């Protein structure tokens, strides 16, 4: 058994951490990803507008450009973190049964993760396809 000695009082160590032991991290990450999403969503709109009417080969060449791929990758990661936290708040507000709530929060995490890896897979595939041609 190891005990760590600290000069800090127990209250100082738990202050702000709350019952979930993670304190305000959700609040902070929601702000951080929200701020990033402003620029990344504008980037997504510009990308989609550019893609309109482009034939397949041109569309792929455009998406696989480094700046476009990176904007999409960053956008997917930032957006899925943001939407996972946001949906968890909604679940915690409206789902009151403990089991159902836990299951809903798990499903929320799986959904956000599935969206993230599917999009990342597709974006990377463009880049790799470009390297091979």
């Amino acid at each position, binding site marked *: 058994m190891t005990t760590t000695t600290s000069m800090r009082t127990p209250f100082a160590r738990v202050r702000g951490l709350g019952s979930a032991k993670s304190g305000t991290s959700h609040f902070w990450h929601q702000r951080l990803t929200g701020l990033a999403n*402003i620029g990344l969503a504008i980037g997504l709109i510009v990308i989609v*507008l550019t893609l*309109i009417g482009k034939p397949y080969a041109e569309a792929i060449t455009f998406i696989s450009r480094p700046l476009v791929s990176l904007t*999409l990758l960053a956008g997917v990661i930032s957006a899925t973190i943001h939407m996972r936290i*946001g*949906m968890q708040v*909604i679940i915690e507000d409206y789902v009151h049964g403990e089991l159902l709530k836990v299951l809903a929060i798990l499903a929320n995490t799986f959904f956000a993760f599935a969206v993230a890896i599917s*999009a990342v897979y*597709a974006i990377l595939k*463009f880049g790799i396809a470009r390297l091979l041609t």
Partner: protein
Amino acid sequence: MTDTATRSRPLSPHLQVYRWPITMVMSIAHRITGAALYFGTLLLVFLLLSAAAGEGSYYKASVLFGSVPGQIVLFGYTFALLHHMLGGIRHFIWDTGRGMEPGTREALAWANLAGSVVLTIIIWAVALAFR
């Protein structure tokens, strides 16, 4: 007993009684647009996976998104994205402790609505010009 239950008595006002303040409507809209965007990410994943699958599926996805129902969904998605984005900026303003005074908060809520409508129209004007 039954008599008292059926007699109409004054009730405390609730959502169906008072006029909805614009701040409340925009708060609800922020949550609804957030939930819509959550499921709307499936559209982006669908588009990306179709493009990654090859020319045939990319063409099919383009036809689907170009159809009237597809365009309506994308228009709604654009509005939800912009409304939620401006709503988020409003939250950032509140985070600094500003924008909560009477008058200012209503102005911000209206700006949120007007801004998202105007930006959606501008983006779609550009999109339709590109077709």
